[in-house]
């Protein structure tokens, strides 16, 4: 990975709170593509398009995508085999 514009999921942690209702970067995910298990905060973030793309730090495949229109939010987490978070 050699792209200086790439951020990580920490940069969109506020957006993730909006989507999920609680802090998500410390949650664990399993990449559906390569099986890597790590904190959501490790996901690489592409934030310069209309939506946000979060990719696996190991295999670079898409794990999470979300985009907002003036009235709707679209969230695709099909790249995560599971999400694991603290109960509250």
């Amino acid at each position: 990975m050699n792209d200086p514009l790439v951020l990580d999921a920490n940069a969109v942690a506020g957006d993730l709170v909006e989507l999920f209702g609680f802090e998500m970067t410390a949650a664990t995910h399993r990449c559906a593509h390569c099986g890597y298990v790590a904190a959501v905060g490790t996901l690489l973030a592409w934030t310069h398009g209309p939506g946000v793309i979060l990719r696996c730090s190991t295999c670079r495949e898409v794990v999470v995508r979300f985009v907002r229109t003036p009235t709707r939010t679209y969230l695709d987490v099909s790249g995560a085999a599971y999400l694991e978070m603290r109960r509250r």
Partner: protein
Amino acid sequence: MPEPLAWQIATVTGIRAETPQVTSFALALPAWRAHRAGQHYDVRLTAPAGYQAQRSYSVASPPSREGQVELTIERIPDGEVSPYFHDVLEVGDRVEVRGPIGGYFVWEPDLGGPLLLIAGGSGVVPLMAMLRERSASASSVPAVLLTSARTVEDLIYRDELTALAAADGLHVIQTLTRSQPPGWTGYARRIDQPMLSEALAAAGATPLAYICGPTLLVEAAANGLVELRVPPAQVRTERFGPTS
């Protein structure tokens, strides 16, 4: 645990220049909550026509400072938000923020150590919150800070780090990549494997590593630590994007 993340109107209570391009802004918050060192706030500016620009800025102050947070912000010349802070904002002005945000790139004394902190440029800001919290809580966790800046004038928190090194057992390693003043005893090149090895040896076995700064620096340092057999799960990273 409820996690309200509503926007609120903060009031600027203090402005302090750190370097020619970096300034700290103290904000009083009506709905203040204690943050965790390493967390950030989102800042949102709204133009009269309704256009909004939003950026994230790391908290530099320790959580023990009630009712306020201090954000240390680098001026990005063509930025949408940071020039407003540097060129327009004055004490008493109000600005829209939400936070504290983040749960991955955080440290608190219960997590222990040793701490191996690596920063490029303004990436030192969240790490400074960790060091200030370590000091405020009288934590005895060993800590090493490896920082890279272009010139000595660009070293953020220079005097405070010197004081922490003298009084608080903090081991500081600094490198200046563009120019060095006469008598400079630190490094004079980009962070590389020998520097990482020295920092790792000073921190001790299996440290908790936090790396923050420009994306390419963070990538190189994180890969370098893993090559030096630091377990990847012990290496936390926060990328700030391109160098300014």
